[in-house]
């Protein structure tokens, strides 16, 4: 079992959370416990290293008019949208203790999403080719990670109560996919606190963590 601490940052600007991630990643690389950061972001588009030119569908004028920031960042993957109602979890883990295997780490993050949704009686799956968590052909959770000194950062974005209209701005992950949310599937808003509580338990089971 590996010790893990939880920090809930609440609603926080993307860049402020990024600075906090970097601080924790440096600490974890120095031997501190693994860390899970929970947060939500005001509407923002982040561009991963694999972003294709045509992944943003809105013009820069439309984005500006609607106060949507666009930030190039150092994670894998294509464009991602974050908005209130989407639970973002930054999993800052020393992968030396979790297999030192990026493929396995990504699959384990998917398993976290699948197990969490199962706890809400939602059946979710992997896609044979696309990283993430899916409900039939719709995507509910996106994954993008960065690794430095075998310490992971970035993580997952789970649509809990996200306003799905926002996704019309982009081709999520550069794909022509439709996004969905837990609220959309349940037909009513889902308690974010309950999702967080269950996520902690699922993370601790899958990654063999002792929450401190």
């Amino acid at each position, binding site marked *: 079992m590996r010790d893990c601490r939880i920090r809930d940052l609440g609603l926080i600007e993307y860049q402020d959370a990024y600075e906090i991630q970097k601080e924790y990643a440096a600490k974890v690389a120095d031997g501190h416990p693994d860390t899970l950061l929970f947060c939500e972001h005001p509407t923002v588009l982040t561009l991963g*290293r*694999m972003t294709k030119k045509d992944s943003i569908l809105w013009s820069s004028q439309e984005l500006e008019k609607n106060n949507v920031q666009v930030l190039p960042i*150092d*994670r*894998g*993957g294509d464009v991602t949208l974050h908005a209130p109602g989407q639970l973002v979890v930054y999993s800052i883990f020393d992968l030396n203790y979790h*297999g*030192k*295997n*990026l*493929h*396995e*780490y*990504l699959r384990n993050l998917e398993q976290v999403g699948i197990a969490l949704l199962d706890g809400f009686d939602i059946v979710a799956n992997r896609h044979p080719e696309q*990283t993430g968590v899916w409900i039939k052909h719709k995507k509910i959770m996106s*994954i*993008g*990670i*960065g*690794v*430095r*000194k075998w310490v992971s950062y970035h993580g997952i974005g789970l649509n809990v109560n996200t306003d799905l209209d926002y996704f019309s701005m982009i081709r999520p992950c550069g794909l022509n996919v439709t996004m969905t949310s837990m609220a959309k599937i349940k037909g009513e808003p889902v308690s974010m606190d309950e999702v967080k509580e269950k996520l902690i338990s699922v993370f601790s089971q899958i990654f063999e963590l002792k929450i401190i």
Partner: protein
Amino acid sequence: MGKITLPELGEGITKATVACWHVKTGDAVKKDDDLVELVTDKATFNVPADGDGTVKEIYVEEGKEADVGSVLAVIE
């Protein structure tokens, strides 16, 4: 120090793309400094220096793909 190779990143990952170099030929580097950021489908991975030295040569340009085990740079 010596050859910096593209490390094993996990099963099924045979290649990665060089996203950006944090150093250039002639730069002095210290152990654990980030040398190069690699990118696979959903992950970025920073390769650190394994000791102090000087960047002698860079073999894979930004934007180019390389196989696991191939030499990315030489540090002396």
